[in-house]
């Protein structure tokens, strides 16, 4: 606490030495409405006001804050300070810039889908706002030499992701399945009665989940990393290392409680209670971007290495207790053992995997802009065998001195299993038209149409095709 006060005072003293420039306030208002194509239901109804404070102190320091004031589905949300940071340039030594506060640390060079952008937790509230992250309380250092830039940061506290909202809430939930029945056997020589092995048919009454966050000690909560970037022969390249929590929790313990059991039919009703926690990964990343013969080229890859073995443990009911209750006996050890699935290993350090993306873009002489990307592994896909392929394409063109932009082809193809492609694919089509009636206003209408089969993520929302209108008024 004392250190924080001293640091804060030091910053204010440092800033007070500069002549303050004119305050700068800006922002935008952005409504967005989506209606389902299949049954005309409202899928999204958001009005967002962003207020930005951006104050520069003679190019030696800058304070910036973004505040969101919103309504979502007619609910008035609490104002949210998304960003609140101070940049100090040439801090102590020349070309060392530090940023302190709630901030976005964005690594990677790809276009919106960045496998190395794993520092800030995902803000998945609106699943169609690709690349949106929460802001994190961090201290960041950037040091520039003539050839190399070093970018390092420390985030002290843990922050979980914001999960999808509303109709899209189930998009990223992981299915936790149980076997239909449990085989219960008796250990040999058990007393007082001899029972043959029997099966307990399980019907799930209720399922509960709880997500546990790391204990509040910095050793358990911190994330940190470093990125080194340079330009080699007209190619911007970087390598990075990051140690942080993953964006999605995984189960580590499921307790099965027997609500009722019929000894004659073997039918039971159970409740499950699953505890989830966030795994921690080492991330080793690399990216590049360049322009060759007028074509923009970029690539980005990240290796995900679990920092330890992560298991999912199952705690089954004590059938000795169950049987004792059935016979109105005090607890008696009948030697009954449930032959349930053993602890499963979800991640182990030797089972690492790589998500990557490569992309190209080109603007033709007639003004048609084309952007093609190939992504291997979406944000919620883990391990080599589970990484799907995503082919993304966007073609757009501006007309009438940039007053109109039409993207007739925009979307992608996702393939889960090439050998069974007819049952493992998703096709997304997102055409849109943007009109700029004046320089500060943008109005966009478009639609999202998804078709596919199999367990590919976007198939979960294929019944939520929509038509949307959104606007942005900057001030």
């Amino acid at each position, binding site marked *: 606490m004392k250190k924080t006060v001293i640091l804060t005072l030091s910053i204010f003293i440092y800033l007070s030495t500069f002549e303050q420039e004119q305050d700068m306030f*800006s*922002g*935008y208002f952005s409504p967005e409405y989506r209606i389902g194509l299949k049954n005309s239901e409202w899928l999204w109804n958001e009005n967002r006001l962003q207020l930005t404070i*951006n104050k*520069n102190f003679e*190019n030696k320091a*800058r304070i910036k804050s973004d505040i969101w004031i919103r309504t979502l589905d007619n609910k008035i949300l609490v104002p949210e300070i998304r960003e609140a940071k101070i*940049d100090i*340039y040439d801090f102590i030594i020349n*070309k060392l*810039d530090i940023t302190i506060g709630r901030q*976005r640390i*964005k690594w990677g*060079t790809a276009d919106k889908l960045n496998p190395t952008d794993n520092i800030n937790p995902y803000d998945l509230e609106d699943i169609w706002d690709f690349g949106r992250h929460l802001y994190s309380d961090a201290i960041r250092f*950037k040091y*520039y030499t003539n050839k190399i*830039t070093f970018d390092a940061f420390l985030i002290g506290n843990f922050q979980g992701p914001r999960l999808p909202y509303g109709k899209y809430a189930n998009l990223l939930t992981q299915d936790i399945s149980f076997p239909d029945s449990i085989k219960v056997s008796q250990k040999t020589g058990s007393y007082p009665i001899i029972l043959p092995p029997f099966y307990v048919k399980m019907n799930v009454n209720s399922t509960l989940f709880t997500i546990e966050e790391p204990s509040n000690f910095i050793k358990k909560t911190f994330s940190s990393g470093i990125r080194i970037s340079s*330009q080699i022969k*007209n190619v*911007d390249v970087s390598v990075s290392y990051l140690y942080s929590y993953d964006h999605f929790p995984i189960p580590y313990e499921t307790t099965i409680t027997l609500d009722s059991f019929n000894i004659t039919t073997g039918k039971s009703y159970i409740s499950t209670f699953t505890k989830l926690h966030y795994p921690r990964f080492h991330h080793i990343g690399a990216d590049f*971007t*360049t*322009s060759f*013969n*007028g*074509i*923009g080229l*970029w690539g980005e890859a990240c290796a995900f290495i679990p920092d330890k073995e992560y298991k999912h443990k199952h705690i089954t009911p004590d059938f000795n207790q169950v049987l004792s209750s059935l016979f109105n006996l005090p607890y008696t050890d009948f030697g009954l053992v449930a032959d349930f699935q053993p602890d499963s290993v979800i991640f182990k350090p030797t089972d690492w995997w790589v998500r990557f993306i490569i992309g190209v*873009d*080109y*603007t*033709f*002489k007639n*003004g048609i*802009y084309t952007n093609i990307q190939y992504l291997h592994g979406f944000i919620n896909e883990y391990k080599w065998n589970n990484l799907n392929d995503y082919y993304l394409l966007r073609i757009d063109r501006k007309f*009438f*001195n*940039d*007053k109109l932009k039409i993207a007739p082809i925009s979307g992608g193809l996702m393939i889960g299993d090439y050998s069974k492609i007819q049952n493992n694919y998703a096709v997304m089509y997102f055409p849109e038209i943007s009109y700029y009636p*004046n*320089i*500060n*206003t*943008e109005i966009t209408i478009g639609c999202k149409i998804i078709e596919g089969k199999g367990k590919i993520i976007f198939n979960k929302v294929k019944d939520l095709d929509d038509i949307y209108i959104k606007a*942005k008024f*900057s*001030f």
Partner: protein
Amino acid sequence: MRTLNLVLVSFVLIIGIKAQTADEVLKKMDATVYAPKDQQMKIKMIIYDKTGKETVREAFSIQKGFDKRLFRFTAPPSQAGIGVLSLPNEVMYLYMPAYEKERRIASSAKNQNFAGTDLSYDDMESKLYQNKYDAVSLKSEGNDFILELKPKPDNKTNYGKLIITLGKDNFYPKNVKYYDKNNVQIKELNNLKIEKINNYWTSTIIEMKTLKTNTKTRLEFTEVKFDNGFSDDEFTVRKLIQK
């Protein structure tokens, strides 16, 4: 036969002298336009659509030599903060505050209009004409030279040729006509106010017309300062993202 040889030699000599002269004029023009070591200025961009309706943008620009420039919009709000950094070897970065990160621009984008103006990224580029174009002819008309330029083979521009009118007294271009590859004029630039500031000739009002769309953009430069002593550090991604 001897007469024919003499005629041929004379013809070659005339062509050679003329080409050399055009080349010299091109070099003198470059030397005039890019004479300052560096410069900074505020820019008011008035964009007129075909009905004459105006849209105004404001920007700030610093430039060093002929291959380093940092350009940043300051108004209107929807554009404020957007910056473009141009570096040697066709390296360009775009910074958009909403994207929160710099982005390398593919050089194919250079032929497109810059932010809705009648100027392309290519037009904005501060590269010596002699590095992008060959001088192919030169005419003298009164107090002006008429210089014809054609793109060098490695110049991936949309333009097929440029016809530049420049003053014989100061070698500063007054008018540039831009032609496409089919030899059809597509744009015209007029330097409407050429003045001497700190011993350097410069144009403080430029107008670029796009003939096909009948639109034009007028650039008004104010607070023009030369030889500020900018270091190369001012033309880095670090400075691009500091706004």
